[in-house]
């Protein structure tokens, strides 16, 4: 009973609580997720340490790419604790509008006038005098929530359909693949704009739009890999040993897909962040005044020649996060493969 709880209960529980947190973030608002989300992260880490063993865990984690991991952790913590570390992203101060980044101004006065004067707006202010850094920090929330929710949606559908259609084949596979063909022939941005028109631009619309954009890619790739793994001798032997289909999928197919899946997820994180930014840029994203990284870039567009910092910093944030997630995904793929893991450690 205890064993069952540890081996099955905790992951299922963690997935369930994550779903609840994301749901609350979407429906109720981000301010309500701070503490539960931090708690969830701690439980996740404790569980992973317990599962892998203290020594093993640190031996593996020690090999993680340092800078990307740091950036991802900082990104997640920033998103969760946004309202604790900065003020409101909606506070306007019109007289103080379009101020250049304060850090640079501080540096300039220090060099030119030998006078140290700390400027409050580190990354400058926008056309309404709102602090860019505050909006960037709160934008991380939107980006993180959209990313997690959209990927959960997209990979959930994609993994289920991909494995089942690859494994069972037949007419079911044919039907699924034709639907996928159809879904892939619709341009993602067009679909998102259409949804934004039909459902009205909102947080949920963005998530659904990105989720619907992602699932078909997961199906295609995971189906192909499933078909490959299914033909392996060890799957045939598992059937000879009397394993059920569900057992084979769980114990043989999925474990052999997991590193491909991890790479796909990490690649799609990048895609999600960029699509979310694109939607924000086109005005079909999360509606203003809620800051998202895409809409921040979009808002700064008309001032690009005079106030470069409005678009530059959100752009850099997207670049860093997407790059870090991709590098982290590569490492994850190696760690999930026992052969590669032992070679690496």
């Amino acid at each position, binding site marked *: 009973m205890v064993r069952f709880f540890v081996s099955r209960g905790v992951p299922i529980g963690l997935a369930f609580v994550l779903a609840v947190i994301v749901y609350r973030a979407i429906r109720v608002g981000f301010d309500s997720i701070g503490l539960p989300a931090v708690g969830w992260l701690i439980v996740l880490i404790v569980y992973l340490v317990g599962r892998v063993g203290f020594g093993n865990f640190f031996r593996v984690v020690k090999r993680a790419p340092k800078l990307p991991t740091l950036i991802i952790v900082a990104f997640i913590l920033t998103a969760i604790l946004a309202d604790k570390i900065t003020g409101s992203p909606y506070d306007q101060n019109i007289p103080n509008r379009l101020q250049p980044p304060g850090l640079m101004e501080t540096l300039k006065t220090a060099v030119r006038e030998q006078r140290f004067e700390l400027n409050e707006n580190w990354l400058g202010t926008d056309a309404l005098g709102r602090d860019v850094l505050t909006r960037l920090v709160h934008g991380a929330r939107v980006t993180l929530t959209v990313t997690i929710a959209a990927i959960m949606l997209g990979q959930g559908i994609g993994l289920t359909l991909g494995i089942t259609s690859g494994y069972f084949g037949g007419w079911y596979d044919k039907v699924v693949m034709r639907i996928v063909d159809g879904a892939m022939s619709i341009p993602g941005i067009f679909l998102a704009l259409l949804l934004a028109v039909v459902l009205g631009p909102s947080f949920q619309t963005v998530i659904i739009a990105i989720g619907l954009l992602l699932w078909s890619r997961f199906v295609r790739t995971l189906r192909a890999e499933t078909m490959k793994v299914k033909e392996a001798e060890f799957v045939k032997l598992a059937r000879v040993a009397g394993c*059920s289909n569900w057992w084979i999928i769980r114990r043989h197919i999925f*474990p*052999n897909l997991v590193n491909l899946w991890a790479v796909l997820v990490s690649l799609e994180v990048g895609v999600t962040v960029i699509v979310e930014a694109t939607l924000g840029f086109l005005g079909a994203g999360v509606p203003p005044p809620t800051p998202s990284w895409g809409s921040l870039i979009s808002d700064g567009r008309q001032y690009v020649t005079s106030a470069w910092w409005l678009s530059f910093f959100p752009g850099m944030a997207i670049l860093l996060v997407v790059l870090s997630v991709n590098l982290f995904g590569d490492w994850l793929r190696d760690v999930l493969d026992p052969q590669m893991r032992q070679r690496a450690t």
Partner: protein
Amino acid sequence: MGTEVSTAGQDTKIGQSMAETDAVLEVSNLKKYFPVTKGIILRKTVGQVQAVDDVTFTVRRGQTFALAGESGCGKTTTSRVLLRLEDATAGEVLFRGKDILNADKDLVKEYRRSVQAVFQDPYSSLEPRMRVGSIISEPLMATGALPKKEIRVRVEEVLAQVGLSPDAANRFPHEFSGGQRQRIALARSLASSPDLILLDEPVSALDVSIRAQILNLLKDLQDQLGVAYLLVAHDLATVRHMCHSIAVMYLGRLVETGSGEEVFGNPLHPYTKALLSAALPSHPRIQRAEIELPGEVPSPLNPPKGCRFHPRCPVAVMPQCAESLPELENHGGSHAVACHLARSA
């Protein structure tokens, strides 16, 4: 039920009179045809590959039955059908007197527990993501053959039987050599104490230096445990070393069956003679006349009329060779040959 078994036994043309031990597996008139289809949308069957045609044999308790023939002769397809990995086109397979081709769920479960397999490639037949202990215990877990507490003990027991140390259970397959991997595969097949193990080319992927070890191990295990083997092999040296009785296959049909001594000592079918003469002698100085067969194996899609072997047969002189298909006929003891010439001789 008992009478049914005995009549089924008399139908088989392999000398039932010799039966001192009872049959584990009785295969009668087994056929496996693969349809060849054309067209993408409107599929129509344009022909059939007669991979296995009218195969009949019996595997006895505690004995080794060998199915020999060159590649493409249908021996592996036969084994796949017997493992229920493929559906048979026609025929009957009795396992301990019960029909397993149309078996209900309980019987399939029992069959899965009692029949295991070892495949040719020790690299792809072990799940790379499972530890050896889990690989070996999978047949036990899947069929619930043993309570969980006893599984660990059983794993160590079979590891010892195949000559591996108990701590191998905690390692991954990629840490072992080919020969060791084949021992692991064998340990797995032994775990559920089966009555019959199907060995599909168990040593042909191994180094010559290891082959004898594995073959001797197989023989020892048979002596200890009384398990029956169905050995599928193209290598006659392997077969000769192992088998009690043998069936030689050519193009989906049995051409000669009998006990090991009968077939190896007095081969009657020209194909068997050619195969035996092609096997390397035990000493390089031994001079022998090699029978060379002209041409290639014909396509099973369009097998030659009459005796399937007649286009390549060095002695096919009789007119009926090209006209009628010879049936297996008894030539004393358990020795049966499908050849018009053998009858007239």
